[in-house]
């Protein structure tokens, strides 16, 4: 791995000596300039919009790191099974370990906005559907955002499909009602929810009110009963919950995907323990960019929690919805007066809100659902704080892609477009059942001591494994039909 340095690399695009002196850098500066101007104009309307701009600018930073490290969970699990390349999986694992330390620091500081997800089989099932979908879209939820920023129109279709499919899924009633176990309906009805939510109508409503709400979420520190917050966060959540599982997975990756090739390359027939350690180190350092990106993401995700926590303290609020109400924007708030406002890195829920809002604009009642009406609301996309974070990720990725001369418009053909939409829909549905995507349900979860994240990864890996087999079969079939590779 990382053999690039040995071979000659001729770069005819490097026309100027300065990496700032090309047209891409100019466009990058224009994007940054426009975002800065819009931010200032927004602040001049009302200083309290700073709460929303924190999301936007952190999104921008995430986008830069994601593109720099090519941080893609789809690539992590897919390359492992498809071509036996562990690089991205290794990078993601290192990133997980590093992020868990910054998350622990934030928890100790008292700024953590994280709540553990309820545990149940839905996590694995949702993960599997999500993992199956990412093979066909060529990117996970965060990967599709950064690839959109690289000019990949196919990835933009994926983002759109994730958005629309989630909104449709959380609203689906009719025939879907027949799939609801009667125990969910009974339990949902017993919750005494307001009439306008029609909580016993719709699969997802009853899934939430009749199933999820009866489950409990717990962090590793709480489960182990650590009373000292520092030990709980660093030993319970970070070390036992994230770092030890990460080390175990890295060892498995080394043994099954790296060791043989490494020993053959290094011409070692009888490896000593020193050779094995050097091999392990070679594997870890081969994904330097991804690991660095992971460290950056971890630090900034921690800083975002801290900044949002401090602003909540300052404005004496628990949720951005309260601030919106004070500023006079009451459209799209949930019946509790809240909007989706996780305070940390999240991807899919805000994308669902975009579609929910759009459907509302054309007259569909989306507010009779638990997901939109009770919990997340459907704010105007311009006032959707986490939504601006997603847009920030796209813009940040575009900025660094332009700087590195890697931005290129890529238009999908029909096959890619169909796969992007079908895969994106599966990702959207999987994300809702599993309560998040590779970021919200895995990355942000395991790094905060929430073990459901590992279950999501397990499901995602299983789904991706089946997806790779199917995709391989599809390519073989197409090649056979089209007569490529005919000798």
């Amino acid at each position, binding site marked *: 791995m990382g053999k690039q340095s040995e071979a000659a690399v001729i770069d005819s695009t490097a026309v100027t000596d300065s990496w700032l002196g090309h047209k891409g850098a100019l466009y990058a500066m224009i994007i940054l300039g426009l975002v800065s101007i819009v931010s200032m104009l927004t602040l001049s309307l009302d200083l309290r919009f700073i709460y929303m701009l924190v999301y936007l600018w952190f999104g921008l930073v995430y986008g830069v790191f994601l593109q720099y490290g090519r941080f893609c969970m789809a690539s992590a699990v897919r390359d492992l099974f*498809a071509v036996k*390349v562990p690089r991205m999986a290794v990078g993601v694992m290192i990133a997980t370990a590093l992020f868990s330390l910054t998350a622990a620091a934030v928890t100790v500081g008292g700024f953590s906005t994280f709540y553990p997800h309820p545990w149940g089989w839905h996590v694995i099932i949702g993960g599997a559907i999500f993992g199956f979908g990412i093979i066909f879209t060529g990117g996970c939820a965060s990967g599709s955002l950064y690839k959109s920023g690289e000019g990949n129109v196919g990835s933009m279709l994926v983002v759109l499909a994730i958005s629309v499919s989630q909104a449709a899924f959380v609203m689906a009633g009719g025939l879907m009602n027949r799939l609801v176990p009667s125990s969910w309906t009974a339990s949902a009805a017993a919750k005494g929810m307001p009439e306008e939510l029609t909580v016993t109508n719709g699969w997802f409503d009853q899934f939430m009110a009749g199933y999820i709400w009866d489950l409990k979420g717990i962090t590793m520190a709480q489960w182990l009963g650590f009373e000292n917050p520092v030990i709980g966060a660093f030993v319970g959540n970070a070390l036992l919950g994230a770092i030890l599982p990460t080390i175990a997975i890295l060892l498995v990756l080394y043994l099954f995907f790296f060791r043989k090739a490494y020993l053959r390359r290094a011409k070692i027939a009888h490896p000593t323990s020193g050779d094995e350690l050097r091999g392990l180190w070679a594997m870890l350092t081969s994904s330097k960019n991804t690991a660095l990106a992971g460290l950056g993401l971890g630090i900034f995700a921690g800083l975002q929690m801290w900044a949002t926590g401090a602003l909540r303290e300052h404005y004496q609020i628990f949720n951005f919805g309260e601030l919106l109400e004070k500023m006079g924007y009451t459209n799209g708030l949930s019946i509790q007066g809240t909007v989706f406002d996780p305070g940390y890195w999240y991807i899919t829920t805000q994308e669902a809100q975009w579609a929910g809002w759009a459907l509302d604009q054309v007259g569909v009642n989306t507010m009779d659902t638990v997901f939109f009406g009770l919990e997340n609301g459907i704010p105007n996309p311009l006032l959707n704080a986490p939504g601006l974070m997603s847009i920030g990720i796209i813009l940040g990725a575009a900025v660094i892609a332009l700087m590195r001369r890697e931005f290129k418009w890529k238009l999908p053909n029909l096959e890619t477009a169909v796969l992007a939409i079908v895969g994106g829909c599966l990702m959207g549905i999987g994300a809702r059942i599993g309560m998040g995507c590779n970021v919200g349900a895995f990355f942000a979860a395991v790094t905060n001591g929430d073990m459901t994240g590992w279950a999501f990864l397990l499901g995602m890996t299983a789904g991706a494994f089946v997806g790779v087999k199917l*995709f391989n079969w599809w390519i073989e079939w197409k090649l056979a039909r089209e007569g490529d590779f005919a000798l």
Partner: protein
Amino acid sequence: MPVLQDILRLWANPDNRRRRPAVSTEHHNVELPGLGCVMVSRTIDCIGEGCPRPQLLTLKAFNQIGQGDIVEFISDNPATVETVLDMMFTLPGSHLATVRTEGRWHVYLRKGHDQP
């Protein structure tokens, strides 16, 4: 407006439209930096393709060619290029050279792990 011109040029340029990845078995010679003239026995054109198809096509090409044969891999997706280079570790193969032009990478790969 340079931005507008760029957008027009984008839509006019067929390179930006994703097409079926072309795998060519026609042999041709290329001049590689530091290696001189080498013969390419497979060309995999993956312009506009995202993962995982380019990887799978490269894997397939490597299964069909002989030891020491050279594959030319063309892509406009930087993440794909990096993964294909990593694949050389396990296949095994070696990375001979990369020629980067505006918006695309031509990567030359040789089957087998021994350097020439």
